[in-house]
């Protein structure tokens, strides 16, 4: 069967009434958690991991896919109406979106974000379906040294490129790698960092860590700042766009998609950079430059499309290589493991129906989101009135339930609390959570590949550099790490460029 046949097969699997119901639940839940600041799709999928015990894999992944895309939609609603970006990827949307809303064009801002997300999501999913299978076919031919290099590249990229501080990213990464070390060493059978507890010899379950860091950590953090002055929310009716808005939006949508997808598909991932680049581009190309900073529709349409396209892009390394590059993908990967499915290049060969059902459900979820989100926007805004104590009591309940359900082992509850406190401390000191989770997931796999390569090579370090793909990856990694330094030395870092641009703007304004 070729890929298109598989896709049709997946579509028919995803379109059964039961699976459609899971898709609806997923997108509704995803939008709801996207709207609420602090609760994201990663936390939601982590809390829902226990459903993998009695729901079929395809139904669970259909729901997770809905949550993944729904979170993006919801985040844009919050950033436009509240000027509080729900996620780091909606920061740019908040700039112009909130200005538009304040100027009385909230309906148009929401509409261009929703429709732009739909367009970008649809194109992104097509690209995903096109590129993931060949990449996976290529990846199967790679040996342990290449695979090791690619995984190390993903770790370095997530740690050093995303986020503001490399040091903080590294601290978080090494915490994650240390947690991943706990358990019996798979080669020699010696217990490592188990503190004499036999329950720890299987390692700490990733579900417990994900739930603790995302849910318990966030709940404790919110509890520490419970009472705050309510944000000023802008009332909104049903989103709609006029002819002029369509005309000004469609090009930014496509350009945003073009930025977002490749950045998402690289193991370096992240939506911050493409949304930022899209904003700059739209600002430069726009015929309405004077509107930027006061609520230009292009400044919402482009970044929002980039955001969603990059979300679709992050599924490429996840499905074709088993490499997660964002938090939600990382947690979804643990769901694969809990079904006993080995994530990696062989996924397309071994579980074609599941993967193609997942891809088909992305199309369905994306369409459902557009249909639901346009009429329901006022309802989503009302969700922001939920008192936080009720919300987080529910989250803590499901977190405890989920952690206990993994092995029905009381020790897991203690671990949940310990890692929850770690999550609180990380938020307190501004450590990013993503490197930790990626470290926990990839750490043991990297170790396995490293020791396999070394064993095959008779313990010679040079055996790690025998494959061309591995060498190219290490070179790219070196460039990635050294580039900021070189740029700084050449006094042409991105920031200075921006300042120069701002200066130009100021001068032009002064002259005008």
């Amino acid at each position: 069967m070729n890929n298109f046949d598989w896709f049709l097969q997946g579509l028919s699997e995803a379109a059964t009434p039961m699976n459609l119901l899971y898709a609806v639940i997923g997108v509704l839940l995803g939008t709801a958690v996207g709207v609420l600041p602090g609760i994201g799709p990663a936390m939601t999928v982590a809390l829902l991991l226990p459903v993998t015990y009695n729901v079929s894999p395809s139904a669970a992944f259909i729901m997770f896919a809905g949550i993944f895309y729904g979170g993006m939609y919801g985040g844009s609603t919050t950033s436009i109406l509240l000027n509080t970006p729900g996620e780091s990827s909606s920061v740019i949307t908040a700039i112009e979106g909130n200005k538009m809303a304040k100027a009385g064009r909230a309906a148009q801002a929401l509409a261009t974000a929703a429709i732009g997300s739909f367009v970008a999501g649809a194109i992104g999913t097509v690209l995903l379906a096109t590129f993931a299978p060949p990449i996976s076919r290529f990846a199967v031919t790679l040996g342990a040294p290449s695979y090791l290099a690619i995984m190390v590249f993903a770790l370095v990229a997530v740690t050093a490129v995303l986020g503001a501080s490399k040091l903080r990213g590294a601290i978080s990464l090494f915490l994650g790698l240390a947690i991943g070390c706990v358990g019996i060493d798979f080669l020699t059978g010696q217990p490592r960092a188990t503190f004499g507890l036999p329950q720890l010899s299987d390692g700490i379950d990733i579900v417990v860590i994900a739930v603790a860091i995302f849910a318990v950590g966030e709940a404790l953090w919110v509890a520490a700042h419970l009472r705050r002055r309510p944000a000023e929310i802008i009332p909104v009716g049903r989103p709609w766009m006029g002819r002029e808005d369509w005309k000004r939006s469609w090009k930014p949508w496509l350009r945003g998609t073009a930025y977002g997808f490749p950045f998402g598909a690289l193991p370096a991932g992240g939506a911050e950079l493409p949304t930022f680049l899209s904003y700059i581009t739209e600002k430069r190309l726009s015929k309405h430059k004077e509107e930027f900073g006061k609520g230009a529709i292009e400044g919402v349409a482009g970044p929002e499309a980039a955001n969603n396209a990059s979300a679709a892009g992050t599924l490429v390394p996840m499905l074709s290589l088993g490499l997660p590059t964002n938090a939600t993908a990382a947690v979804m990967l643990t769901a694969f493991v809990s079904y006993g499915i080995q994530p990696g290049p062989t996924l397309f060969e071994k579980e074609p129906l599941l993967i193609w059902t997942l891809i088909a459900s992305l199309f369905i979820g994306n369409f459902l989101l557009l249909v639901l989100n346009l009429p329901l926007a006022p309802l989503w805004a009302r969700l922001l009135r939920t008192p936080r104590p009720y919300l987080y009591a529910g989250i803590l309940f499901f977190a405890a339930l989920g952690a206990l359900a993994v092995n029905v082992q009381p020790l897991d509850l203690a671990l949940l609390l310990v890692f929850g406190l770690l999550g609180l401390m990380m938020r307190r000191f501004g450590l990013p959570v993503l490197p930790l989770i990626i470290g926990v997931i990839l750490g043991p796999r990297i170790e396995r590949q490293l020791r396999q390569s070394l064993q095959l090579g008779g313990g010679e370090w040079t055996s790690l550099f025998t494959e061309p793909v591995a060498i190219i990856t290490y070179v790219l990694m070196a460039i990635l790490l050294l580039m900021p330094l070189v740029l700084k030395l050449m006094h042409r870092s991105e920031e200075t460029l921006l300042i120069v641009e701002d200066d130009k703007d100021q001068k032009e304004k002064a002259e005008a």
Partner: protein
Amino acid sequence: MIVIGYSADPYGRAALEHGIAEAKLRQTTLLVINATSGESYADPRFAQSGEVHDVEEHLASCGVEFELTQPVGVDTADELLTAMDRPDAALLVIGIRHRSPVGKLLLGSVSQQLLLECPKPVLAVKPA
């Protein structure tokens, strides 16, 4: 002094109007309290900066001496009852609304608590 329990909706505005009328009649001062628990991300009854400005202008134009406070992170009923404990507080004005029994059960009723627990007269008004 007359205390007004204000909320940014028709009920709060009704309380404000009746409170102003009463203050003119009694030749006394006004304390307008617009409190929020601060527990949710958005509280539509908590007046936003633009509306606060309008209310202040309106009060000033009525020629009554007034004070407007917006305490955050407090229980609305407790805040009003504390204000009514002051010796010079003579009357509490609140706007009341229809509530379903289920809503009362889940969220409680600030007006009911005030009507029952306030030691001084309470004027409960409805928007026209």
